[in-house]
């Protein structure tokens, strides 16, 4: 008699691209999971218990195991579950995927934040330039393929999900345009391909709802950007 597989639960929060990464990984692997939605303004004991170090989502619960940090969770899912691999098999290609994943997580936040959420009184040109340069560097990694993973969505595609969906939402909410098809054709094609994918659509927040969500928080984000810009 086969042992029952340990339960998989994902602690997440609405609108988080980091949570989407994990949902995609689980779905691509064919893993059934329970999504526990946190109110991130009122975090639960469950979250504090399972992520005492960072107190952030996503957190993966797999049986009695807890895994935190989205990129760490992605690699865990790739290794712990059967199903199509998320990362390439070749060590060099794996190192490239990890490099660009780290690049996405470290090099986009600051220029994007200050490009979008600062007011008209701020000279955004340097931030926009940096943001565009980073996108151009990333775009080159597509190397003529539909996805970073090749013909199908893989580790780097799901890591870059915020660029495919949340970026456009932010442009709409703020009225600041960063991306255009002439300058970043391969990137735009990739983004369209990503959000059109059937698996992605199952766990991607609806665009209009995200627009409303960010619009409601616009003042808060702009105040935060103003405060940190002058630090």
């Amino acid at each position: 008699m086969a042992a029952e597989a340990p339960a998989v639960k994902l602690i997440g929060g609405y609108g988080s691209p980091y949570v989407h990464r994990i949902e995609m990984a689980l779905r691509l692997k064919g893993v059934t999971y329970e999504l526990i939605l946190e109110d991130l303004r009122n975090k639960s004991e469950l979250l504090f218990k399972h992520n005492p170090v960072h107190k952030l989502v996503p957190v993966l619960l797999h049986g009695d195991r807890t895994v935190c940090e989205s990129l760490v969770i992605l690699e865990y899912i790739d290794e712990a579950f059967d199903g199509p691999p998320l990362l390439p098999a070749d060590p060099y290609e794996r190192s490239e995927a990890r490099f660009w994943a780290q690049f996405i997580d470290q090099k986009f936040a600051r220029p994007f934040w200050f490009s979008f959420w600062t007011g008209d009184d701020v000279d955004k040109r340097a931030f926009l330039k940096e943001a565009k340069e980073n996108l151009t560097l990333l775009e080159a990694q597509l190397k003529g393929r539909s996805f970073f993973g090749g013909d199908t969505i893989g580790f780097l595609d799901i890591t870059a999900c915020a660029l495919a969906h949340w970026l456009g939402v932010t442009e709409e909410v703020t009225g600041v345009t960063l991306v255009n098809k002439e300058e970043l054709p391969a990137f735009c094609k990739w983004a369209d391909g990503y959000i059109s994918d059937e698996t992605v659509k199952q766990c991607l927040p609806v665009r209009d709802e995200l627009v409303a969500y960010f619009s409601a928080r616009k003042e808060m984000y702009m105040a935060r950007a103003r405060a940190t810009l002058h630090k």
Partner: protein
Amino acid sequence: MWASPMVIRVEWALRLKGVEYEYVDEDLANKSADLLRYNPVTKKVPVLVHDGKPIAESTIIVEYIDEAWNGGYPIMAADPYERAQARFWARYAEDKVRALYAIFSTTSEAQRKAAHEAQQCLKTLETALEGKKFFGGDAVGYVDIIVGWYAHWLPVVEEVCGVSVVTDEELPLLKAWFGRLLAVDVLKAALPDRDRLLAANKARREQVLSA
């Protein structure tokens, strides 16, 4: 670059695997054409070039070394959950490293605050050592390679800055691990000379304070 902890990580990984390598020293004030060609994105060291292909970012290079020479010394555990925990703590240490740098660039009250914050971060990291000789268990593993530089550099920083961070009272497990790590011959052999490191850090401290 002789005094870079990030470079040491890569050398340790290569040496544990018994991989022969050529070490190319860079003058970071005058970067070579090779470095800029191999790492155009961040232009930093270390860069590992294997069969003509460059890999950048020390934590990523160490994983690459483990996978490319996967028959040799196991840097990562085999179990996915242990690997996840190792990656988590390596990422934690990387994120918190500025707390250590802050000690170096401050004085008086700001420095006391920085030292305390660094201690708090190290206490959290220390929990991953409980019941073990090394972060990797009985032998040196991924996290040991990533944070092992503390064992050689932190005492130098403490001496140069006149602060105590890693003490028997506050961080007993970490202090004991420092001793065990530095006793591993393969790792000890790659460390920069302590006196040279001390002199360089004293000079840099003076530079930082007079800026």
